[in-house]
């Protein structure tokens, strides 16, 4: 088995706030191979974004820090690197696409300046060759008339177009790992599909490992190979997409899948998950889903379950699946 592009083991990131220490990422482990897309799914506050920000060490300062755990990029340990070394990793080895295209581009600078910047940083190009490469990047994300677009400003572009520009900047190096943080949430439905198609194409062309953060299970089924479900800073279930959708093991995953209204299926009412996500500054001891779990047992309230294998490639962190 080849070394995965990114391999995270027991990552813990804590955030110090005035309400206490928040365990934003509480023992997360996963890995993504070249050409593979891992979906990171969960409600708001489950720790999806914090996990990915931890990978590039851009969590809010000075309040947060990676407390323990290991992050290996192509076998290279990242947690022990200095800030200067991390700056060389950001964008070049690990790139990220943010959620809101309307605010991710700097309004007072041209598209050209913002696309040239990474190209010049990563490849040291200048002048005409720099411009040519920047235009090539824009064509790669299927933006028509790229040379003219370089002179445009963000406010002159639509959301979908801007998100493509962000995509162009992300593949400028090209990186080894691309993290997409809900990139289509703010886009129109028709544009969403196009954008997802574009991401797949880019991934295929550059053999990227991709982490796709979303709360939308529909997108997961379309574009992800594997999925990791997060809850309260922990991964509760992971496995190949098909398997998880067909046979979800963890009660939370089950509840999530059940809460999606399906066309054609006759239902009396919409199912929602009872209760509220927990306050991450005051996590209950034991399984964090216990207060809301329909299948909770006594053991769950006392001890937090580790991940148990339930099927080939699929694990679930639930006492229901305890082996032995």
């Amino acid at each position, binding site marked *: 088995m080849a070394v995965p592009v990114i391999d995270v083991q027991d990552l813990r990131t804590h955030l110090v706030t005035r309400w206490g220490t928040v365990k934003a990422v509480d023992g997360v482990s996963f890995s993504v191979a070249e050409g593979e897309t891992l979906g990171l799914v969960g409600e708001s506050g489950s720790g999806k974004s914090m996990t990915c920000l931890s990978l*590039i060490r*851009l969590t809010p300062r000075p309040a947060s820090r990676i407390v323990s755990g290991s992050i290996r990029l192509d076998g290279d340990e990242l947690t022990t690197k200095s800030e200067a070394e991390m*700056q*060389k*990793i*950001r*964008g*070049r080895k690990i*790139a*990220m696409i*943010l959620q*809101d295209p309307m*605010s*991710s*581009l*700097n*309004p*007072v*600078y*041209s598209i050209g300046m913002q696309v040239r*910047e*990474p190209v010049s*940083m*990563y490849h040291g190009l200048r002048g005409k060759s720099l411009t040519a490469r920047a235009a090539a990047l824009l064509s790669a994300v299927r933006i028509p008339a790229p040379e003219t677009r370089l002179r445009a*400003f963000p*406010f*002159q572009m639509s959301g979908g177009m801007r998100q493509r520009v*962000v995509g162009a*900047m992300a593949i400028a190096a090209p990186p080894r790992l691309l993290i997409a943080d809900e990139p289509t949430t703010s886009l129109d439905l028709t544009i969403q599909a196009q954008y997802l198609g574009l991401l797949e194409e880019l991934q295929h062309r550059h053999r990227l490992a991709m982490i796709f953060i979303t709360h939308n299970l529909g997108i997961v089924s379309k574009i992800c190979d594997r999925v990791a479900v997060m809850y309260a800073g922990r991964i509760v279930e992971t496995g190949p997409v098909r398997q998880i959708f067909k046979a979800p093991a963890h009660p939370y995953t089950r509840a999530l899948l059940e809460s999606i209204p399906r066309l054609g299926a006759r239902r009396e009412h919409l199912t929602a998950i009872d209760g509220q996500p927990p306050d991450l500054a005051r996590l209950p001891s034991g399984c964090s889903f216990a207060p809301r779990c329909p299948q909770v047992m006594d053991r769950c309230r006392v001890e937090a379950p580790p991940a148990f294998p339930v099927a080939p490639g699929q694990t679930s962190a639930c006492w229901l699946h305890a082996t032995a």
Partner: protein
Amino acid sequence: MIRFVLSRLAQSLVALAILSVVVFILARATGDPLQLILPMSATAEDYAEARRYLGLDRPYVEQYLSFVGRAVTGDFGVSLRARRPVIELLQERLPNSIRLAAFAMAVSLSIAFPLGVLAAVRKGTGLDRAAQVVAVLGQSLPTFWVSIVLVEVVAGRLQWLPAGGNDAGLASYVLPGFTLGWFVVAGMMRLLRSGMLEVLDSEYVKLARVKGVLEPRVVWIHALKNALIPVVTFAGIYFSILVTTAIVVETVFAWPGLGRLAYEGISARDFPVIQAVVLTTAAIVALVSLSVDCLYAVIDPRIRHGR
């Protein structure tokens, strides 16, 4: 862009026109200048003749129109007190005020900019707190108090710098410039700090860091330009304030500028001088305001393209 400039220009002219009327009325409201010019023994006939000579006996509307007509060509009449063309007095005094204001602005900006940006970047540290203290004090200390203390201590006791006048070269700019600029530093610094804090929190700055852009570049190139707009507005306002309220500083430091000219003019009920000073002041304010708006368009492409 041209349309933008032209429309702003037209608006400024309208404002100036309104002002000219107000000024005309107010100047005359200061009283009868003849009482101060003519000797005590002057008779009624002397008064009448002086009035005719100075054109003060014509109907007001006529006086106003001739005033405006000539003002447009730069002829502000003759100072009733100094018996010299007002335009000459302006030419002597105005540059001094502008130089002082420019000096104060330049010094203030070169202090306020780095301080404001650094205070935001190093939020919560000693530097930040010190900067905030400086800012709040700067806006709470009365200028004239600081000036007289400076005059007495630095110029009087220590004799490091001249106490007044502008004949000692750069040295004479220091005290009055510092006094004037002190509160500009305060205001600008706070604006920059809060603007930067807001911008540093934005998504596009986050993306710049994600791209691996080095932190100094993130702060000074990506962030700063976005924080500039309110700062530019205030730079304009402050410059106008500097030129117009310099009257206090000019008095304390015996600076031969526009403010002192106004003071002298008002005391002597010298209509032409008063009118000219106020109009010039207003014109300066309008000009600065116009430049500020043009500067916005340069900084922010959204404004340039008409939003």
